[in-house]
């Protein structure tokens, strides 16, 4: 597997990197194979779909994240932080590991899936703890 230019770009210039002042949810997730930890923070859109309280219908307004990681986990978190804005939880759940691989250009070594999905797992957890 080669590192695609887009991965290297997100790795070197991670988007939405940092800490959010007033996050609705903050979640930490770690990668057991290397000890890397990522923090993902989200702000949930209040106006849209306000009729329903269903978790599935909550819409992401903003994502910020931080952590030290490898090129794959960093690029994945960066790309994900752009991708999920405006999505509902139901839509995010649908992305799945396959969607993450697709997002990263269609090729992730099986041994690196933990790296690629680190931020995604945090994001899924964020909604779960919101119950």
């Amino acid at each position, binding site marked *: 597997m080669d*590192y695609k230019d887009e991965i290297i770009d997100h790795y070197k210039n991670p988007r939405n990197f940092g800490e959010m002042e007033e996050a609705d949810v903050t979640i930490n997730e770690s990668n057991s194979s290397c*000890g890397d930890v990522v923090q993902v923070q989200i702000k949930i859109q209040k106006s849209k779909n306000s009729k329903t309280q269903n978790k599935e219908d909550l819409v992401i307004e903003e994502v910020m994240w931080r952590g030290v990681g*490898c090129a794959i986990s960093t690029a994945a978190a960066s790309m994900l932080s752009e991708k999920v804005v405006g999505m509902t939880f139901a839509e995010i759940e649908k992305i799945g590991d396959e969607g993450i691989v697709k997002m990263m250009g269609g090729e992730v070594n099986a041994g690196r899936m933990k790296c690629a999905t680190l931020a995604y797992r945090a994001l899924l957890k964020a909604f779960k703890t919101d119950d």
Partner: protein
Amino acid sequence: MFDVEKIRADFPILKRKINGHELVYLDSGATSQKPESVLRAMDDFYRNNNANIHRGVYDLSVESTKMVDEVREKVAKFIGGRAEEIIFTRNASESLNLVMYSWGKKNIKEGDVILVTRLEHHSNFVPWQVLCKEKGASFRVVEVDSEGRIDGSSLKRLTEDGKVKLFALTGASNAIGTLVDIKKMVELVKKNNPRVVVVLDASQMVPHMSMDVNKLPVDFVAFSGHKMLGPTGTGVLWGKKEVLLNMEPFMYGGDMISEVGLTETTWADLPNKFEAGTPDIAGIIGLGAAVDYLTNLGMGEVRTHEKELVEYALEKFKLLEDEDLVTVYGVKKSEERGGAIAFNVKGVHSHDVAQVLNNFGICVRSGQHCAAPLVTSFNVMSMVRATFYVYNTKSEIDYLVEKIKEVPKVFI
């Protein structure tokens, strides 16, 4: 004569190409490759001798039983123990867990101390941590110095109160290669804890150097078969007969009983008492072939070869350090080091290093090497590790060093 090229020819997998390159396998610390003779022994067994052991009176069963017993003798001879003291397990982790469940649960009480070191693989760390929590015992971790040697003063301090009931230590660090002066460490512990039971994780020793359990002040020795040219699914626990006799079984079932009644059951003699169920018979036969292979090479020769490799690697890596490209961890003297070198490429995550090296056909491990407490003590989250074995060569180390130089370029 130790002839690496001849040895390499015995390992079919070394002919494989990875991403168009020759396979450079530098992860024997995780599991070793297997020579033709091991593969053939297992295949032959299934084709010609397969039957369950200790069950039948027919010829096949008698043969397979005899074959397993012979391997037990062989393994015993290889490490200096008696055959009845050799218990076959799936791997070193299971061996260590056997001691925890069988010996530990019965003998560790509230207020006792279990001592481990920061060098341990998780498998000689977590079981003891869990047992201490369960029993209300205290779990103490001996620190290491800046090069990753066991810190004698930390050990003295933690053993002064005489409460240490069990001391679990590794003979060689799987992550950074430190060789431990086992006798010295156990002596220090025994000074105030004369009755301490000692559990040695020899997973990175038995495959790499000659060893005699009778000359070591230890009660249990655990190691894996698959790290010493044997198949996966094989491990060994050696225990001192006197200690094993006073232990209850860890698992119950077939082959480990003496008499079974409706209300009471008595246990088989050693070592069957600890081997419930049908073992990995073909695997054990394969392990026997691996022991033969290593015995033919001579363990002194094996150690010399690996020591030369690690010395050479340390020299080459020193040059990379001088170029400010890498950080190397662990002791600098090859006498105190097994065939492992742990490092990081500056500014690049260990997983990314391993990934780029894989593109060149090089297999190295990255991450925490099942030794998080040790790795993080060097103020890093993870490391890259290259481990050497009988089939590795200096030219492979040259190739590794050359390709390490390519790594940072990918990320600039």
